[in-house]
């Protein structure tokens, strides 16, 4: 575990000066906190008390400096003013302490946030495929919040209590040892009880958190799936599901409060007893003339000054456990290797030709379970190739390898006859326009989304690409046109619309290589044909790879590759593949079966037109 904190230590070290200042100011503040009751004590003993004898000590010199006892007793406002002044100084140094610590902590957190964001942008895909994105998001947000809470509250409170004790207790001892011991008699008991208690209720705290999480999940699923709920008239069932979780959360929460009420009342009993002890014992000692009235007064205040914050110690110390877990979780992200870049990257031309070759490529996300086996094929620059195959045959995987989202394990991939691994990842990606199976749009305006890959594109070009993707008219139909915000806080688009927006985003890049990973599945056939035609016209010179399961798409391609179990099963043009038994022929037959039906339908519909044939 300790190495987890390394990052924290490194970050703290860079703000050494601020932290040193905040400790210094805290020491000063504690000193003044001590002084306030002390002034009260001196006033009572040396000024207000008629029988007080002048003593030969430093206090007397201060009194003499201010005009002597009788002058001060006639002008008691000076004592009052001094209390005000000391309190002011105490407040000032408390403020300064916060000033130094806040700027240090917040800068540290800013640094950590930035590092996390930078990291999640550069982590390899292998990392993302194995993690739960919700959990990852929590690490970047809630865990940072926990850390912030820890740095700005727990550490500060702990520091305040500890330094207060360190500064005040010796000063108390100087005044009267016996009184000090009496004032602190029950303190260890309170601290131990608090530590023990908050250690023990951690479990129930966690249970409450979990119950809350379950409750949230139920509500969230209900709201997201509201159509399903209504479709099956399951409102009562949902109410019951919610009722269970709601009750569970309520009961656990109340259970926690019951425990807390026990803690607060028992610790109240201890703390008030401590104050009572000082009151009775102290006043008895005053009566026995063992201590002065002023000392008694001061100790009465010191006791409450120490005991109440010390009671909180248990809570604060137990909270640090959470922060340790949080920093560990954050560290787990930061310690991941980001995507590796080659030492000396090959310089790619402004625009590559777009020739792609796979040579005996093998790859598996899990080395035990290879997805691609010895895959070899070649695609000429400017060629349009359709890739077919059953689910799990490795179609999408080969795209991921080409984009270097994953690193191939064996064989080689060549781009314009150069080894892919020797190139800079971002340079490869900027040459390839890719449309992923699941279109991803950002929570911005439509225009910004289209220009996402090419920020400096003109509006003219943006509109052109939207027209190509057959989405221009749809966009104009929105009230704010290209300025329409989409996503959670804006307009929601249908699957087909989303696909077409990402399509226009890719078109705008005008890449030498274009990859469509089953991109038009949610677009109707008519629109699909329109888009494909537009693509031919504009991007005829781009090398195009289309993963599809539609025959209509294959008809638009120069060549067809059929994958099966990670190897090349069939290869050829539409005509050549039709003649060989295999996947392609089967697919064709299914769709032709439908077509034959169609022909039959037509014949039935137009019986009189038959004899002409």
């Amino acid at each position, binding site marked *: 575990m300790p190495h987890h904190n390394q990052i924290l230590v490194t970050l703290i070290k860079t703000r050494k000066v601020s932290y040193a200042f905040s400790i210094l100011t805290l020491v000063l503040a504690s000193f003044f906190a001590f002084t306030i009751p002390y002034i009260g004590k001196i006033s009572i003993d040396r000024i207000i008390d008629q029988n007080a004898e002048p003593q030969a000590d430093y206090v007397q010199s201060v009194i003499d400096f201010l005009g002597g006892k009788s002058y001060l007793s006639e002008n008691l406002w000076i004592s009052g003013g001094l209390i005000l002044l000391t309190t002011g100084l105490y407040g000032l140094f408390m403020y300064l302490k916060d000033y130094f610590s806040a700027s240090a902590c917040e800068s540290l957190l800013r640094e950590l946030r930035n590092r996390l964001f930078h990291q999640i*942008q550069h982590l390899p895909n292998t990392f993302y495929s194995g993690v739960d994105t919700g959990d990852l998001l929590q690490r970047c947000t809630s865990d940072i919040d926990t850390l912030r809470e820890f740095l700005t509250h727990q550490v500060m409170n702990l520091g305040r209590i500890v330094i207060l004790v360190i500064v005040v207790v010796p000063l108390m001892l100087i005044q009267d040892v016996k009184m000090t011991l009496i004032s602190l008699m029950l303190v260890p008991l309170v601290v131990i009880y608090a530590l023990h208690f908050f250690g023990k209720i951690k479990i129930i705290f966690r249970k409450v958190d979990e119950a809350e999480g379950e409750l949230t999940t139920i509500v969230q699923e209900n709201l997201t799936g509201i159509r399903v709920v209504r479709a099956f008239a399951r409102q009562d069932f949902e109410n019951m599901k919610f009722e269970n979780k709601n009750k569970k959360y309520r009961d656990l929460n109340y259970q926690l409060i019951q425990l807390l009420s026990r803690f607060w009342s028992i610790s109240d009993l201890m703390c008030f007893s401590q104050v009572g002890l000082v009151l009775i014992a102290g006043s008895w000692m005053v009566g026995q003339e063992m201590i002065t009235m002023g000392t008694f007064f001061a100790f009465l205040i010191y006791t409450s000054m120490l005991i109440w914050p010390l009671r909180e110690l248990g809570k604060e110390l137990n909270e640090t456990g959470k922060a340790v877990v949080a920093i560990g979780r954050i560290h787990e992200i930061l310690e991941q290797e980001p995507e590796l870049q080659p030492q000396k990257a090959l310089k790619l031309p402004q625009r590559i030709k777009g020739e792609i070759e796979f040579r005996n490529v093998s790859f598996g996300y899990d080395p035990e379970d290879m997805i691609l086996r010895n895959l070899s094929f070649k695609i000429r620059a400017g060629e349009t190739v359709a890739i077919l195959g059953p689910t799990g045959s490795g179609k999408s995987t080969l795209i991921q390898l080409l984009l270097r989202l994953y690193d191939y394990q064996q064989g080689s991939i060549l781009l314009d006859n150069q080894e892919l691994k020797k190139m800079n990842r971002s340079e490869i990606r900027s040459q390839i326009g890719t449309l992923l199976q699941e279109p991803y749009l950002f929570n911005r305006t439509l225009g910004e989304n289209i220009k996402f890959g090419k920020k400096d594109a003109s509006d003219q070009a943006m509109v052109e690409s939207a027209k190509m993707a057959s989405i221009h008219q749809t966009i104009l139909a929105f009230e704010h046109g290209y300025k329409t915000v989409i996503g959670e806080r804006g307009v929601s688009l249908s699957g087909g619309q989303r696909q077409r927006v990402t399509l226009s985003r890719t078109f705008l890049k005008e890449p030498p290589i274009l990859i469509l990973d089953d991109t038009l599945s949610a677009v109707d056939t008519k629109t699909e044909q329109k888009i494909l035609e537009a693509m031919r016209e504009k991007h005829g010179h781009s090398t195009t790879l289309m993963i599809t399961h539609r025959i209509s798409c294959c008809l638009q391609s120069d060549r067809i590759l059929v994958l099966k179990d990670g190897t090349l099963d069939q290869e050829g043009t539409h005509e050549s593949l039709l003649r060989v038994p295999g996947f392609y022929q089967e697919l064709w037959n*299914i769709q032709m079966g439908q077509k034959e039906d169609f022909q039959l339908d037509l014949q039935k519909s137009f019986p009189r037109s038959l004899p002409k044939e």
Partner: protein
Amino acid sequence: MSEFQTASLFENKGVWKQLFVMFLLPQKKRFLLLIAVAVIVAGIEATFTIVTKLVIDEVVTHGKDAYLLQYAFIYFGLTVSISVSVFIFILLAGRLSTEMMYHLRKQSFEHLQKLSFSFYDRHSVGWLLARITSDCERIARIIAWGTLDLFWAGPMLLGALMVLLVLNWKLALTVMGIIPVLLVVSLYFKNLILESSRRVRRTNSLLTATYNEGITGSQTSKILVREQENFDEFKVSSEEMHGYSITNTLQASAYFPLVIVTASIGTGVALWIGGEYVIGGLMTLGTLIAFITYTRDFSEPLLHIAEVLTNLQQAQACAERILGLLNVAPEIKDSAELTEQMRRSKTEHVKNNLRIKEIEFKNTFFAYKQDQPVLKDFNIKIPAGKTIALVGPTGSGKSTIANLICRFYEPTKGEILINGIDYRKRSLKWLQSNLGIVLQTPFLFSGTIESNIQYGNLTASKQEIVDAAKMVHVHDLIMAMENGYKTEVEEGGSNFSTGQKQLLSFARAILADPQIFVMDEATSAVDTHTEHLIQKGLSKVLENRTSFIIAHRLSTIRSADTILVIEEGEIKEQGKHEELLQLKGKYHDLYQTQFI
């Protein structure tokens, strides 16, 4: 954000009144008891200082012979009783807050189950979720603990003041001068801090959203080589967060010293004037020390009062949102007469057996937004057991027709009749429990595959579930998984592909054995091979059911009893497959493009 201003706190009394009547009145006894205990605690705390004074005066007058034992007993007695009272009052406040939270959530959730889709169209899931989770929590916490604080702090302050007035009214009145100052300073700062905290939270949720996009869109960002720009944009927000957080902390840091300095004016004055009284023999030393202690004690209850007042402002906004939600009347619900009738005759269950003979759209108009009609004077009669296919371009109104049949929305004009009676005169629950719907964007609940299919019919046996799964050819796929039907579905069904989710929700709908079956692009993401298999079994599924099918794949549509070609909310063509082909119209064109 004017709704959060101080001035509005008591303007909107209606909100508090409604909240009080709905959630506190049922717990009246507990609420009153809480107030009583809070007052007792305050009383005891105020008494502590009197004992201190008495002890000191005893020592000053009797010196060595001071008799202190009785005071020790009194003090200890007070200590025990305050501990017991604190125990009771935390329990009571805790009970009040957890109960209130429970009821707020229960009512909101159950109300949401009744609200119509038009309401869901206007509010995002995230927004609604925040109402049920954080708003309910905040209101309950602030009201319960705020009540406790107020009824402790008020009497505490009053008690202290009364004691002071009795001890020495002149000095008491002088010292009391700091109270308004403290209150004004506190309220001013609390508001300032509230504002800046809100800014911090807003920026924080912006950061969360950016992280979320950074994570979920990481692949897209990589492909578009946008990493650096994204990072630069993030840094701007994170810098903002840095600034706002520091401001927020420093405001809170300035507040505390100001309060104690103000309070220490009281202490200073007490020492100055009180000291003079002591020197002049007008006051005992015990009284002086009591005064000084009380002036220190002032600030705490005052701070609590300021805190409660600011929190209430915050709660006001939450309360307005929650009550706003609870006050939305469901647009679609059983009419009052029908509810009354059902209550009297208890016929709801009997009516479940009602067989649908005919569904009719009669001069039906519909618009999601005013002056943007989607359906215009729509007319059709559908005999039971028939399969109706809806064909047409995106946005033509196909899904709207499905939504109207399910009574997710109601016609804005005209009627929809079931067996000749306007369906608004029938029970909503009856209609919807006779529906089976498969949507393009399928939704799975967390739980197992089995429980997800079972959602269609809660009493279905394992065998029936398996049969339904077999019918849509998803059984083999399920069995191929390690845990078979017991495979856990992750949140949002993220461990299944869209096609698989479509198949599972298809099975769920079949299990429901509905009289009306609606498929809205139900198999769009299923691969061609599986789709083909499903087609074969579909006729069996649709037998004896009135079905509405929306699909792009014409193979699904061919066998329908009636095909409606919809464009701009109107039926352009209507008839059987062959008839429509003969027309050589829109349907023919559409069909042609399927095979080029």
